[in-house]
Structure formats: C-alpha cells, structure tokens
C-alpha cells in the first residue's frame, strides 16, 4: 500500500518531441493518496491509458518520475511495482480454465496453493463466476471474459493500487451497473487505492471519491464530484461534466463588473479580475443555476423546450448566444420573450478557459 506521486511527468511517444502537440501527456503533477477511490475522466485520446501504463510500468515516461511513497519506481518493471491493471478489452488465457486464469497472477508469484484456492473462490463468488470456474475460458461470452480480466486484477492482496482502464466497455448496461457497485463495495471493504479510467461521467462520479479530469494530455481539475459540479476549474470541466453541460458565454469585465450582452450581471469572481486582462473572457453558469424571472434579469428568447424526465430543458437565446436552463416538471414555460436570472454565487468568469481565482467563493 502506498501513496502514488507523479512528479513533473511528461510523455511523448515519438522521438525528439519539441512542440507541446508532440506530447501525449503534458506536464503532470498528481498525488494519489493511499486508499483513495479515484476516477480518471476525459474524452477518448486524452492520454488516460498512457497515464495508467506509466503508473503500472508498461511505459517509461520520457520525462519525470513516478514515486510509490517516497521510492522512485520509474525504472521498475510492472511485476516489481506490485500493481494490478485491468485492460479495456478482455484478455484471457484461452487454454486455461476460468479457475486457472484467476489463479495465474498468484501462482506466478509463488503463492501457496491453499491460499490460491481461497482467493480464487472468494473473487469468483464476488463476480459471479462460481458456476463456470472449471470451464475453459475460451468458451465464455465477452462479458464472462471481461469478468475474468477483472478477477485477475482483484485476486492479489499484495498490490499498491488496482487500475481499471475502461473495464466495462464491452459489458452490457445492467451488468455494468452491478459490477461497478461491486467494485465500489470492494473498495470500501479493503480500502485499497483504485484508479478507474473512464470517459463516462456517470461512471466516474458514482465510483470515485476524487475525480481527475483530463483533456488533451493535461489534468484540468482534480476534485470530488460535488466540487466538479459546483466549481468547475476549467470551462472544459463545466462542459464535459453535467448534462446538459455548463453554459459558456462570451462576456466583458469592466471595473470588476461582468457584462453579458451589454447587461450587467452579478458573478462570484469578476471582482478579482483586473481590467485589460489578456485572453478571451467567458461566463460559466450551469443550467441548474439559471432560472426564469418575468420581472427583471437578462432579456432572452425561448427557443425550445424539451423534456428530460424530472426536468424540462429550456433553450433560450441571449442575443445570439444559446443559454440552457433547467426548470422543474409541471411549470409553465412562457413562449417568446422572457428574462433570465443567474445565481450569483454559481456564476463565474473564466479567462482563457481557466477559472479566475479569487472572489467570494461559495
């Protein structure tokens, strides 16, 4: 068991990287606390697998260090790091039985057969493979094979961290939900560090205590699901997490006051921004924190109303900028002209994509 620290880490697949685009991972400094349940969330191709492979030792980073507690493990092979990793697509040893597959990581490490048996049966029970334990692994369905892959990751008790690289991609939705709860349950029982990679926000937010959000080789924010929802540190986080995502609107700031489409608007952090700051300024506010107000507010036109179950998603337009808001079921939505009010403590200014620091944070 160990704390994992990535220190000034960078990685490029090609030789002689020069421009930032040559790097699959830009500079990263992350600490994974011992025993945490982490999710690594980001769109396809943002470098999640690369990062996992660097932690596990399948890849050596082109720059920087990986520390387990205070030991530098950058040069160590995967089997010297005591880690487990489950891959996106199932890998099973075809000629072995399900039992032997699960026992494989233990037997390779010389675990006594009695302990192997105990562990294998325990894990098989957890992931519902008991009935097929003696079958040949090659005969199983894709679901079953992925369960074996998962099981091989879970079976060892000597690991510092278990990493899952989109482990439930090929699994059908119902089983997916079950397996995710089991992983969560297991984490709560054994308190082992887990890093769960996914591009699905629901998966990340339900599994993890802390979510690391990545975009194009960079970590844009690390936080609890609530923090990511309430205080997105970057436009990307606001947009990527939540459905629908955060409204991101061009704005101006003069003398610590934000203006949207020429109308003054209260924000939590515009006061911290000096006049004449470089970079495009934008306002970020989640649809949850925008409401209709017939009396005063920002003038808007209602464009479309759609139903998403508990809420109605109202699409409006302020000038030529689309603004979405959520309104409870059953409330009458006006057509045509209306006015919007934004909750000041949840409305923030972003400069060049990043949240402007300071101001009265909620």
């Amino acid at each position, binding site marked *: 068991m160990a704390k994992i620290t990535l220190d000034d880490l960078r990685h490029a697949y090609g030789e002689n990287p020069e421009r930032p685009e040559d790097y699959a991972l830009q500079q990263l400094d992350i600490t994974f606390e011992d025993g945490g349940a982490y999710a690594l969330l980001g769109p396809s191709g943002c470098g999640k697998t690369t990062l996992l*492979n660097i932690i*596990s*030792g*399948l890849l050596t980073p082109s720059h920087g260090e990986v520390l387990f507690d205070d030991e530098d493990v950058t040069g160590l*092979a*995967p*089997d010297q790091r005591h*880690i*487990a*990793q489950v*891959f996106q*697509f199932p*890998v099973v*040893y*075809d*000629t*072995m039985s399900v039992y032997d597959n699960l026992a*494989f*990581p233990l037997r*390779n*490490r010389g675990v006594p057969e009695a302990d192997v048996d105990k562990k294998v049966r325990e894990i098989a029970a957890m992931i519902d493979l008991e009935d097929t334990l003696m079958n*040949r692994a090659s005969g199983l369905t894709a679901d079953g094979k992925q369960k074996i*892959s998962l099981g*091989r*990751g879970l079976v060892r008790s000597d690991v510092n961290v278990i990493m899952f690289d989109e482990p439930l991609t090929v699994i059908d939705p119902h089983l997916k939900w079950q397996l995710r709860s089991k992983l969560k349950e297991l984490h709560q029982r054994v308190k082992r560090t887990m890093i769960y990679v996914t591009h699905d926000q629901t998966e990340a937010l339900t599994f993890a205590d802390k979510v690391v959000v990545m975009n194009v080789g960079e970590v844009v924010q690390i936080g609890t699901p609530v923090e990511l929802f309430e205080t997105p540190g970057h436009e990307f986080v606001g947009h990527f997490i939540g459905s629908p995502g955060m409204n991101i609107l061009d704005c101006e700031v003069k003398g610590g006051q934000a203006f949207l489409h020429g109308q003054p608007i209260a924000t939590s952090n515009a006061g911290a921004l000096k006049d004449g700051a470089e970079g495009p300024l934008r306002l970020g506010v989640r649809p949850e924190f925008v409401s209709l107000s017939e009396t005063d507010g920002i003038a808007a036109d209602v464009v479309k109303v759609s139903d998403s179950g508990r809420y109605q998603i109202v699409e409006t337009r302020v000038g030529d900028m689309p603004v979405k808001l959520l309104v409870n079921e059953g409330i009458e939505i006006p057509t045509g002209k209306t006015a919007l009010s934004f909750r000041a403590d949840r409305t923030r200014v972003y400069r060049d994509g990043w949240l402007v620091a300071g101001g009265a944070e909620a």
Partner: protein
Amino acid sequence: MNKLQNNKAWLFVLPVFALVAFNAIIPLMTVVNYSVQETFGNNEFFWAGVIWFQDILQSERFHASLGRQAIFTASILAIEMPLGVAIALTMPRKGPWVSVCLVLMALPLLIPWNVVGAMWNIFALPDIGFLGHMLNAIGFDFNFTRQPGDAWFTLILMDVWHWTSLVVLLAYAGLSSIPDAYYQAAKIDGAGSWAIFRYIQLPKLSRVLTIAFLLRFMDSFMIYTEPFVLTGGGPGNSTTLLSIDLVKIALGQFDLGPAAAMSLIYFLIILLLSWVFYTVMTRNEEQ
C-alpha cells in the same frame, strides 16, 4: 433463406472441373487402371486383380523404403518444428531489421529444388566441398557418398536448411498477430517468458503450426528431387525414400503394375496420416 436456383451458374465452375479432371482425376484413374493389370509388352493388358497390391504390401523392399521414409519425415519434423518456432521467437517484431530477416528467411524457399540438391552435394563432398572438407579437417571421417550415416546426416541437414524457413515464416506471422494487450496483461500478471510462451504464444500459434506441420509432413513424405540429386538413394539403398523407390520401379524396371499399386498405397498412406494428424491436432479447439 431462399436459395435461388440458377443452373447457368454451373457453367462458371465448368472450367475448374475440366482442369481438375485433366490434371488429377484422369491421371489417377490411369494409375488405378495399371494397378489391376498385367502386361507382357505389345501394348496388351490382362486383368490381374489385386496381386500387385498384395505383392507390394508383402515386399520387404517396400517395408524398408517406408521405414526409411518414416524415419526421415519424423526426424525433419522433430527438428524443423521446434527450430522454426524458436527462430521466429527471436526475430525482431518491429524496426528496420524485420524485412532483412524476412528476406533472409525466404531465400532458401526460393531456390529450385534440384539446385538445392546440387548445392548440398557439392558442399558436402569430402574432398572439395566446404562442409565435407571442414568436417574431415576437424577429425571426422566424413564421406556421404560411402557411409550411410553421413548420407543421412547430410540429407537431414539439407532439408532443415531448405524448409525450416517455412515454419519460421508461418510462426512469425502467427506471433505478429498476437495483440499487444496479451503481453501487457502477462507482464502485470507476473508471467515469466516460459509462461508467456506456454500460455499465450503457443496457444495462439496452434493453428498456423497445424498448417506448418501438415505441409511439412506431406512435402517431406513425398520428397524426391533433393535426395535424388544429393545421394541418388545411396550409398546402396540407404537413403532410398519411397518416391525414389517408386521411380526406380516405374521407370527403371518399367514394372507399371506394381509401380501403380505402390503409388496408390503411397497416396493412401499420406491421405490417412494427414487426416489423423489434422483430427488429433484440431480436436482441442472443438471442445
């Protein structure tokens, strides 16, 4: 599904039928015809029944050739299969050396068979051949034209040189098709190189190795040109394999009946053994 009845379609396969008939069925039937007849010249043939088959099956000469053939085929398979896999495992998986290795490996396969025989004949000659000369120089009494053991040694070495590449290329293709994820998983699971070979590479190679085995079995069981050029079946009859014996009977002695009967028996042995090997080797997959 409804099958569309289209009798015109048969016209398109007709050329293939014709071709197969001319180069396989008609010659085969001619052989069958010879095998049940006796002739005393003058192009006169008489019904002979199965006596040629009885003769061949009971002849010691046939037993001896068949025995030599079995030893030859078993030896080269026992050497070429593991050696081929071993070489394929050591070949680079990527980089500029891949094509160099592949071309080097393919070279022996591109040389005409009689040239291979002639090359090795000269190569192994005790007086002027490099191999023969060197062996004698380091103290071996090597003479493949006089000593049966030396003839066998040269014969097997020649076949290994000529054909191991085929196994290498097939095994290499099989290895290249194993996704990286398997090796990554094996590293995470702490598998050593033996475990990787035993549980990942060998199972993934089983199909191509079945093909390689059958090809090498059939080819080596029918081998003619190279041993004929190398040793001519000698010294004595010591390297007279089945095909060489068959040609001696058919064209040397012009005993068409026995030769035809022998061809058919030969053919059936290859067919039967191939079937047995194929069934045994693919049995596991069907479970």
